[in-house]
Each structure stands twice: as structure tokens, then as C-alpha cells.
């Protein structure tokens, strides 16, 4: 017989969004469980050996992996019950979730949920993209920064967003040569300071370029790149080859929303937020009563904003549960909302702001 474990709140995903949510809930006196399919807490942060941007209150200037450690320790100290190596497989009508851990099923139930499952990497279609040596950026980071394994000797990176730029830098730190970074857009999408960092290492950034093909028998041996025109089609005659054994793809992320679909949350397609995202109110509560979202699953953004969203969602869930002092919780929520707003206020927050506006419009229209 499978017994049912009951909590006030369950946080699904222990990354930068889930951790603060669980910490806030536990601080308010709620009985909280946090579930993550990985063997350690921290989500994407555990792979990030570089210093973070943002303001000091979001621990800017601290390395991602260290932030993960600090938050995980706090969650445990506050009494959050943590399930690691545990995957949430399904969400059912009666607010019950099915969790797989150590090849066994656990049924759990909670009054409030915070879904903070993050995002998954997008692939890119080109001939031979299934050859060993073609990696997603996240896999390269996991190999190098978590397991200390070099993915190869010489790499070509696809995508000049922050992720592509940072991973190129980390490849060089690990002793891998980076032949070039190619980017289909005419402009560098990541922060210019990150781009300048890799340029100082002598790595060219080829904007308006894409990968057309990878060559090799058993593994990647060579890659062809070409310039693209305004409609992103490769221009014949501009092809050139690089001898590399690694091709890294950093071409975007899409929110991991399966559980939200299962729960019946109203969803909208907003490209600026990474794909399908849940409709939610200003407290990050979805159309399903008591189900909150935070972080990349709600729209692909940054760890700094994920942490603030996590706090906000955790506080709002506590309020819903009637835990904590109402005035204290409301004040903390207001602070988190203001900090989020100021983070998104600049030109690089433009895309997110537009995305959130589009989501609000879409939600109103139906």
C-alpha cells in the first residue's frame, strides 16, 4: 500500500527559485517539502562557477555555486524536508502528486504548491547533430564544473547569449581551446562585458553566422559554418570549416511546464518568455487556486530574478495558508515586487517586460 505524505506546501524544484520559496514558507511556520530530481540542491547554480550580476541583496559578485550552498544550508536549517534524486511525475485532480525516488513511488499532497522546475535547452537542426561531440551547453557545464571532465580539445560554440559566452570562457578555463562563437543574429545577445571577456582571450565572435553541418564518422571532427542573410538563410560561398571535436549549443531555453499542463493551469505562448508559460497574478499564483510558479518555468530569465520570484511566491503561498504575520508577509512581498521591478527596469530587461505585458494582454483577451 502506498501511504500519502501530507504537507502544508510542496516546492517542486530546488534551484534559485525553489530554494527561497521553501525558505520563506518554512520561516512562516509551514510544514514544507522540497523535491528535486538531482542529487543536490541548487539547480543551474551548481554549475555556475562565475560571479553573478545583480545587486548585492541578490548576492551579486558571489559565484553561483556558492549561492546554491548558502541557500541550501538555510533551507535545511529552517526545517524544510528535502527529497533529492526524486522526480515529480504527475499532478492529479485531488492535489496529489506522484514522486519517483529510488525506483519507488511516493504519493504526496499539499494545500499549496510552488512549481519551480526551471527550463530545458533547445536543440538546433543541422545534418549530423546527433554525432557524439555535439553537446547542449548545460551538458558541457555539468561535465566540466560538476564532474571535472573535459568535453574535448577544441570547441565551437553556437549562440552568443550569456550562456554561450560564459561557457566559452569556462571551456578555456578548463583548458579547452575555443575556435569561435557563432551567432545567427547580427548582434551579441549576451552582456557585452561577457563578450569582451572572451574576445580578450582571442576568441572570435561571428555574428550573422550559423552552423550548416557537422562532419565526422564516429564523432565530431569538423564543422562548417556560413554567413546568414537577413532572413537567416546561409549565403552560398561563405562556408568555412573549423577542425573541432566539440560543438556546443547554447541556442535558448524553454520552460519545463509539463506539471503545469497536467494541473490544468491556463497557459499562453509568449516567445519573449521562452515558449508556453502559465498565466498568473502579481503574486505568481496561476489559474489553479493555491498553485504558484517562480523562476524559469514562469518565463526564462535570470537567477537573480528567479530568487526574487521564489521569495514572492513562497510568501504569497504562506499568506494563502494563513501562516506568518499578515503585515510582515505583505511588507516582504511588496519589497520583493519592487526589487523585481528595478531589476527589470533597464534596457536588457526590455524583452522580459514586453513578454510579461504580452502575457497579461493575452490573459485578458480570453
Amino acid at each position, binding site marked *: 500500500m502506498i501511504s500519502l505524505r501530507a504537507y502544508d506546501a510542496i516546492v517542486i524544484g530546488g534551484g534559485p527559485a525553489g530554494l527561497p520559496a521553501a525558505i520563506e514558507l518554512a520561516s512562516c511556520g509551514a510544514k514544507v517539502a522540497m523535491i528535486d530530481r538531482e542529487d543536490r540542491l541548487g539547480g543551474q547554480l551548481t554549475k555556475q562557477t562565475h560571479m553573478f550580476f545583480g545587486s548585492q541583496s541578490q548576492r*551579486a559578485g558571489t559565484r553561483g555555486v556558492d549561492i546554491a550552498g548558502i541557500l541550501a544550508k538555510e533551507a535545511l536549517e529552517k526545517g524544510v524536508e528535502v527529497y533529492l534524486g526524486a522526480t515529480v511525475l504527475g499532478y492529479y485532480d485531488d492535489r496529489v502528486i506522484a514522486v519517483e525516488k529510488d525506483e519507488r513511488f511516493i504519493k504526496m499532497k499539499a494545500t499549496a504548491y510552488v512549481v519551480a522546475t526551471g527550463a530545458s535547452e533547445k536543440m538546433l537542426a543541422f545534418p549530423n547533430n546527433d554525432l557524439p561531440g555535439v553537446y547542449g551547453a548545460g551538458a558541457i557545464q555539468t561535465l566540466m564544473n560538476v564532474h571535472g571532465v573535459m568535453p574535448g580539445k577544441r570547441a565551437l560554440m553556437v549562440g552568443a547569449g550569456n550562456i554561450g559566452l560564459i561557457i566559452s570562457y569556462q571551456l578555456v578555463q578548463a583548458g579547452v581551446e575555443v575556435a569561435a562563437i557563432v551567432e545567427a543574429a547580427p548582434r*551579441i545577445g549576451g552582456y557585452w562585458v561577457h563578450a569582451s571577456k572572451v574576445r580578450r*582571450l582571442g576568441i572570435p*565572435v561571428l555574428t550573422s553566422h550559423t552552423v550548416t553541418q557537422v562532419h565526422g564518422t564516429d564523432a565530431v571532427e569538423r564543422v562548417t559554418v556560413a554567413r546568414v542573410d537577413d532572413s537567416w538563410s546561409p549565403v552560398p560561398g561563405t562556408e568555412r570549416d573549423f577542425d573541432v571535436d566539440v560543438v556546443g549549443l547554447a541556442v535558448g531555453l524553454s520552460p519545463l511546464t509539463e506539471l503545469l499542463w497536467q494541473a490544468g493551469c491556463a497557459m499562453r505562448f509568449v516567445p519573449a518568455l521562452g515558449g508556453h508559460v502559465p498565466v498568473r497574478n502579481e503574486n505568481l499564483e496561476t489559474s489553479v487556486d493555491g498553485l504558484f510558479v517562480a523562476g524559469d518555468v514562469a518565463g526564462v530569465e535570470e537567477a537573480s530574478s528567479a530568487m526574487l520570484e521564489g521569495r514572492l511566491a513562497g510568501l504569497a503561498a504562506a499568506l494563502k495558508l494563513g501562516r506568518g504575520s499578515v503585515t510582515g508577509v505583505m511588507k516582504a512581498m511588496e519589497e520583493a515586487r519592487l526589487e523585481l521591478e528595478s531589476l527589470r527596469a533597464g534596457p536588457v*530587461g526590455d524583452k522580459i517586460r514586453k513578454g510579461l505585458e504580452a502575457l497579461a494582454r493575452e490573459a485578458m483577451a480570453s
Partner: protein
Amino acid sequence: MIENTGVATKEDLAQVEPSLERREKGPVAVFECFQEIPCNPCYTSCRVGAVEEFKDINDLPHVDHDRCTGCGVCISHCPGLAIFVVDQSHQDYAVVRVPYEFLPVPSEGQEVDALDREGNVVCRARVRKVQNAKSQDKTLVVWLEVPHEAAMTARNFRVVKDR
């Protein structure tokens, strides 16, 4: 342009470089940060108030070069690794301090290749000092002695095997 290349142009740099007169007086910070991003550790790490207060976290940093003592504390706090300290008060060489997060770590007195903003070799440099305090959290600061002509172009270096 920097948004296409990742390399600051002469015009970009003209906005942020301290005057030669200031550089000849002693060490001073050069902030090569040209995009409004949500980031402010340069401001919070400067203890003498040489970085203008951020009204909005997305503001560009502004350094008062006269107030800046060239202490270099901000170098290892900047997640963009966009801050350098230049000192042209010496007769025979300029000193450029750069952030460094690679192996091998050079030893003091060692000769290395100084690199420009595109990773091209500019000149040979002598490593004057290597700072690696705990507070720097693994972002080393390496002091390079370079000819005065290279003071505003040398922004990185490479350890080369002894020839």
C-alpha cells in the same frame, strides 16, 4: 561596434579613460563597462566613494578619477571583469592591473605576453605582482609592467613557455 564585436571602439573608450595627466599622477581605475545591465558591485565595493551612487541598478558606472585612489578593490568584485587599474607615474614603464581567472598563475618577475582587447599580442610584459587574497574569491589581480605606449591597450596576458 561593441554590440556586434564585443570589442570597445575608440569612441567607447574615449568616454571612460582617465586623462594622461591623471594616469601620470598614479594608479587609477578604468571602467570598460558600456551597457546598462542590472549590476552594481563596483559601486558597493568602492570604499572611498569614487563610484557615483547608482540611482537605478541598471545605470552605467561613473568613476570620479580624482577621487579614485587606484586601490584596485573593485577589480575582483566586478562580475564583468571590466575594470582595470592603470598607473603611469613611473619613468620607464606603465603598470596595468588586470583580473585573471586562469591557470597557470604566473610568478612575480616572470615575463608574459600582454594581449589587447582582441587577444592579440601587444608586447612583452613583466609580472610585477600577483594578488590573490581570500576576499578576491579566486579572481586574481595581476600587475603587468608594460611600455607606456601599451598602457591603454594591454588588457590581458598569456603565460608563454620560456623560450
